[in-house]
């Protein structure tokens, strides 16, 4: 993991900076959907949970931890995007006049 550390730190810093620049432009009107959306996006951690839940090999502790972690992350994957969309759907412009 040592040799990949530098590149990982680079990726982290660049992503944090990019996130800062992009999020800064989000209208304060949409800050609640923003929080729900970023929460859904960071649920990409499900990818790490999957490799543990699916590793096999009969380690009961590891499989249990991986399965619970996968379930928790999936709540945010599915729920996060859905509730973001539900909120955004409510923001309407005046229809006519």
């Amino acid at each position: 993991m040592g040799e990949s550390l530098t590149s990982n730190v680079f990726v982290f810093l660049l992503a944090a900076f990019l996130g800062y620049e992009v999020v800064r432009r989000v209208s304060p009107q949409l800050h609640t959907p923003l929080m729900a959306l970023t929460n859904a996006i960071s649920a990409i951690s499900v990818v790490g949970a999957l490799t543990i839940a699916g590793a096999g090999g009969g380690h009961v502790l590891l499989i249990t931890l991986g399965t619970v972690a996968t379930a928790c992350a999936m709540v945010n994957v599915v729920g996060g995007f859905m509730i973001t969309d539900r909120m955004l759907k409510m923001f309407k412009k005046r229809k006519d006049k």
Partner: protein
Amino acid sequence: MDWINLAVVIKAGFYPHAAGLPWYVTVIYLAAAGSFVLSLKWLSSHKTARLGVKAGEIGMAAAIIATLFLPEIRQYNWIFIAGIAGSAVGILLAVFTPMTAVPQQTALSHAFGALAAALVGTAEFYAHQSHLTHFHTAVICLECLLGYLTFTGSLIAAGKLHEVLPTRPLVFKFQNPLNFIIFGLAIACATWLAIDPQQTILYPIFIGLALLFGVMLIIPIGGGDMPTVIALLNSYAGLSAAAMGFVVNNKLLIIGGALEGSSGFILSMIMCKAMNRSFVNVLFGQSQGNTVVGTDDVYTGRIKKTTPEEVAELLTSARRVAIVPGYGLAVAQAQHVTGELFKLLESKGVDVQFAIHPVAGRMPGHMNVLLAEANIPYDHLHEMEEINDQFGEVDVVLVNGANDVVNPDARENPKSPIAGMPILNVDKARTVVVIKRSLSPGFAGIPNPLFARDNCLMLFADGKTATMDIIQQIKSEG
């Protein structure tokens, strides 16, 4: 589950001796990372916002499917069960959470995200127990510390927001020293583990301390500071996911976590600025309510009471009306009656705009969601900077459930505890009507000279009842 085994067979055909990520999984991860950034970028405009959600969903789905084909995944039954269970809970939460309960739902989702990261960290620790390097252990400990403390902290925050736990700050003697000791012990355990990864007995102690610290961190924080706390926990949840990316050496996780981490950081900065407080003050301050000043000299003989009849008359004869919804309106769940009042006034040809302070709701942007739900078009919702210089042209301002955020002392009295706090300049309007239960102070614990001004009328009532009475009056006048 034969088809599940079939997937294993198909995959085995693809990767007989796979090592590292297959090239096209890397490509898909890269595309997913791009879609996440686009997703946030498209949220900057109402027009493209829903497209942003789609982009995020597609990136997420692609990344998950690609991962399922990785050679290190050999068994699908538990993944299948976890996927179904997690998705079911997610759908239930997303579909049935009322908009007023979105803050606690958000806190709960931070808890889920952080727990996932913490459990993966724990699994990594035990999986590699015998050959952990110092560095690997240190990163796992960081992931677990962030994950477990965000997990319990978010649960406490959700409990306070849902009012199953007392919303007032729980404060006791030597609280801060005790918290520092707990945190210090956790760091000491982590350091020892990093130096000697074979001391595995320390690991459960470390987890216990992290869990405890999360609880201790949030119990002294009162309801008024919740917007900042949710944003801060949002940031922590993202950082724990990013830490997981370091542990499992996956850049997509690092990117996803970093995006949430910086977003939560920005939001908590905005909240702190809007409340004129610092992080340290929110987390360790507990100064709220200690500064109550004698209110008599400010208010005596200067308060003018009004009635729903008079307010109805004022509103219908006005040309321009601005409504300032505050925290109190969110708590009283008065958004729908406010929407009704909006429609009624618009039908009478009155121009009605909403002026929304950043801390108006129970979490960043919450008030906008509530008003959007009440069918108020979003082009009538204005943030503070946008509307502040227009108050001079407004005939009537209706302040409902807000106090400190319209206190002119912040602007005019450099000695005030809230001096410099950004406020809505409602006092510049021709007439200000304040709907409030009593003259009791807001979170800052100070009197509000606005209430004593010549152009200010007080309507002492519950925000929802008062709005309904006003609607009634306007209707009865025809």
